[in-house]
């Protein structure tokens, strides 16, 4: 027979009261619960694959932007929740998870154009602010734009316009080698239009599958076609592999190579011996013209990570800063209020004024034209900055295209 010890016997009424009291405790002290819950921001960046070299820096810049504010937003603790984006479908599933399970109030990310195009549609469906930091496909802030999506990277078509004079300076017989996904297809389309307008000839064009390991057969075709210049549209690791093999097959210095949107990590992977070409990029850590705020960021990054900030680190930082500034400004985590905050956000760094354009949510940023140095003596410092484009800041609106040209209808 079981005998209960007297010390363990509780009157039923007391037990009920105790249980009810425990259950009701969170209701009695909601301020405590709220104070313990940090404000969560989602980060949606690839953790594996050929783009992971870039996303590591994007994430570093994003995390640094929050650390600079003492990991707080609106005076409350804030944290970043980073999920992977292995494919467009998995990325949108993770986006949903961030919103529904992690309760984030906004999302930063979009490392590849193919992912970002799917993510921005999902952001509109979930009604969550999405600030895209890396993808460059024109349609993101073009015909696919929506009220919840903001984008930093300069659209492909704009960067192509900036690069075209450099390509044309080598001649009018172009060979295109571009990735066979959204980013590369966008470059091919834009570049062909610019070449046609300049009265040039396309002597060859190859669309290359993502993650191609051997470019020798493509390079043999280019060699046989004898173009004046090769216009590239390869992404991340594929660009590095191409440049490495371009040098290995003895083509470096024989036919000029140009491409938009190179990342520092892409050229660091190539190495000093094989690196070559002329490119556009958004930012360079060793650009003497960087404003003091960005020099301070570069110094903070170097101190924390022991190596220079790649352009992608700056891209992660400025995008996150725009979002964090906006949340602090509107003092709310309500989605529409954050959207309004981002629309009104302005950041003056030296003579550079950053903001998102109201009608398409595209950040207007002057790009750099850079060429690989003739002699590389520092394993991080590969580029000479040739120009800041457009040369007159007043031309920014014009270069990025008018509302009619962009075709963004937010509704």
């Amino acid at each position, binding site marked *: 027979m079981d005998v209960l010890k007297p010390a363990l016997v509780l009157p039923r009424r007391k037990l009920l009261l105790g249980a009810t009291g425990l259950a009701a405790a969170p209701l009695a002290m909601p301020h405590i619960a709220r104070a313990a819950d940090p404000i969560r921001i989602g980060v949606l960046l690839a953790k594996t694959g050929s783009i*992971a070299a870039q996303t590591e820096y994007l994430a570093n810049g994003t995390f640094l932007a929050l650390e600079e504010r003492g990991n707080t937003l609106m005076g409350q603790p804030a944290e970043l929740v980073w999920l992977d984006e292995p494919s467009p479908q998995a990325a949108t599933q993770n986006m949903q998870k961030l919103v529904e399970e992690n309760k984030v109030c906004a999302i930063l990310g979009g490392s590849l154009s193919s992912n970002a195009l799917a993510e921005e549609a999902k952001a509109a469906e979930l009604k969550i602010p999405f600030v895209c930091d890396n993808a460059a496909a024109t349609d993101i802030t073009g015909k696919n734009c929506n009220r919840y999506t903001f984008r930093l990277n300069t659209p492909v078509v704009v960067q192509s316009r900036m690069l075209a004079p450099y390509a044309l300076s080598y001649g009018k017989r172009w060979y295109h080698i571009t990735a*066979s996904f959204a980013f590369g297809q966008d470059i091919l389309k834009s570049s062909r239009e610019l070449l046609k307008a300049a009265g040039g000839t396309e002597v060859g064009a190859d669309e290359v*599958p993502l993650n191609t*390991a*051997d470019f*020798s057969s493509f390079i043999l*075709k280019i060699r046989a076609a004898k173009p004046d210049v090769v216009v590239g549209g390869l992404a991340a690791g594929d660009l590095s592999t191409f440049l490495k093999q371009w040098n290995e097959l003895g083509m470096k210095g024989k036919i000029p190579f140009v491409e938009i949107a190179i990342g520092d990590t892409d050229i660091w992977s190539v*190495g000093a*011996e094989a690196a070559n070409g002329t490119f556009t990029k958004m930012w360079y850590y060793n650009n003497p013209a960087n404003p003091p705020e960005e020099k301070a960021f570069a110094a903070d990054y170097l101190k924390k990570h022991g190596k220079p900030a790649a352009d992608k680190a700056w891209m992660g930082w400025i995008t996150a800063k725009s979002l964090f500034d906006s949340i602090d400004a509107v003092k709310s985590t309500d989605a529409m209020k954050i959207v309004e905050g981002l629309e009104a956000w302005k950041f003056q760094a030296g003579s550079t004024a950053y903001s998102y354009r109201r009608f398409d949510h595209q950040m207007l940023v002057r790009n750099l034209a850079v060429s690989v140095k003739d002699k590389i003596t520092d394993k991080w410092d590969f580029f000479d900055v040739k120009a800041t484009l457009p040369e007159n800041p007043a031309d920014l609106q014009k270069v990025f295209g008018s509302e009619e040209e962009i075709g963004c209808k937010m509704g």
Partner: protein
Amino acid sequence: MLDPEVLLSQLASGLVLGGLYVLIAIGLSIIFGLLGIVNFAHGVFFTLGAYFALTLYQYFGWPAVILAPIGVGAIGMIAERLLIQRLYDKEPLVSLIVTFALALLIEASVRLIWGGIGQPFSPPPFLSGIFIWGPVLITKYRAAVFGTTVVVLVALWLFLEHTPFGRILRAGSRDPEMVGLLGINLPKVLTWVFGLGCAISGIAGVLAAPLWTITPAMATNAIMPAFVVVAIGGLGSFAGAVIAGLLVGVVIAMTIQFWPEASGAMMYLFMALMLLLRPRGLLGERWERFE
């Protein structure tokens, strides 16, 4: 009008690429043949070969690079003792999942040790430059890669066909129980076989390092072609893997010449076609223990 010089150069380029695929696939094929394990982690041993070569070169110069495959083989043997040997009597699905997890673990470790960004690495100076042999253009380094591949394959064939250990391997792949009953310590043999398969994959990684971008994810570009080569050649078939690897390389090179957009998909189409015509692969045979 298509230039025959370009076609012949494309053929040479395809053979070099195919040679690398053969090296990756042959280890996979040997491991499957004897251990019955479909090793999803095989590609990361290719990655380790590339990273070991890079590190050995940085600290000790080019001659030390030759040690990289030995290091990879040793890691393979440790993995076999700690993990793989527990899978021999399990369902094939279990070994797929466990070796996939092992691949993720090794990739993450590589990322942790060497960092996520690509590492620069170029061919040795004495192999830089190009050869032009009549109509064929090939770089000195690629010619050396092809030559090394041939030497490794011949050495491996001699080892398997003409040494007592090779005879045990071939017998063990057909009837492991009988080999055990003859008093041969089969578990020890299996450990060596797994190490050998990984070391060969490591050789491919060393050879590819100056050509490909060295990143933690570079196995992605190696493992799928390896599976395709093994499937086309016939599971466990040495000669089948050699023929299939070279064919896949040439098919990819020719597709790039005539239909570049399809170059990534063509090897899968080729595999589907081959398997329709010969379901066991080119030189695949009926293996009682896998039926």
